[in-house]
């Protein structure tokens, strides 16, 4: 029986451009509903491995800037709201 939850990082087909060979890596999350036909697949780019002509390797991570900014805004709003609530609650009880 297939796993309910699968998370893995897979490497793709390498591309050769000039002196560099680029191998992309992606992370995938698969969630299946036990006993029911259905599920969720979430794929995200993870990093690229760059191998140059001299054999030097460099891993360049791929950062999701949009998602990072979104979470920062959500986090900031929650923290601010919490601080406002604590501040006004103290003032009300004083």
């Amino acid at each position, binding site marked *: 029986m297939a796993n309910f939850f699968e998370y893995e990082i897979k490497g793709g087909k390498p591309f050769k451009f000039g002196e560099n060979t680029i191998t*992309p890596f992606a992370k995938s999350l698969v969630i299946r509903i036990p006993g029911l036909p259905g599920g969720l697949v979430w794929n995200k780019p993870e990093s*690229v491995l760059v191998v140059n002509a001299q054999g030097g390797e460099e891993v360049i991570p791929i950062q999701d*800037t949009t998602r990072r900014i979104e979470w920062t805004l959500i986090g900031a709003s929650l923290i601010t709201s919490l601080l406002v609530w604590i501040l*006004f609650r103290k003032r009300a009880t004083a």
Partner: protein
Amino acid sequence: MSDESNFDATEGEEMDLDDLELMESEQTMDVIQDTMDTFLETANVDAVYGEPIENGQTVVIPSAEILAVMGFGMGSGYGSSSEEGDENQGGGSGGGGGGRVLARPVAAIISSPEGVRVEPIVDVTKIALAGLTAGGFMLGMILRMMSPKKAVGKIKT
């Protein structure tokens, strides 16, 4: 009847409905399984990275985040008349499914004679929407905390 493969109109009818029910369920499950297999195949690297685009000595590989959700449901029912002497039988089955695939560009990998670099793709609309939501939430919270009775009074009127 001498030939066993022929259909028996009396005893065979009930068996035939059961067989039909089983066959329909199996066929439906096969279709669902095939669709699920195709769906799960999207969990690979090729789905995330696009084909390289060459422009002179520069090559760009686009990358995207892909979220796919899918679900199925099916059911069937068979029955016969409860009245004596009435041999009417009937049944039916149905199924349905739905899904959604969301894709969003994340970054572009650029390979040029200077080297390889990753340029993020920023979705300004998404950020603006998140900012407006967060700002509205904070403003609402501050206003509510500053004058809770007034705010409740306004809502009531």
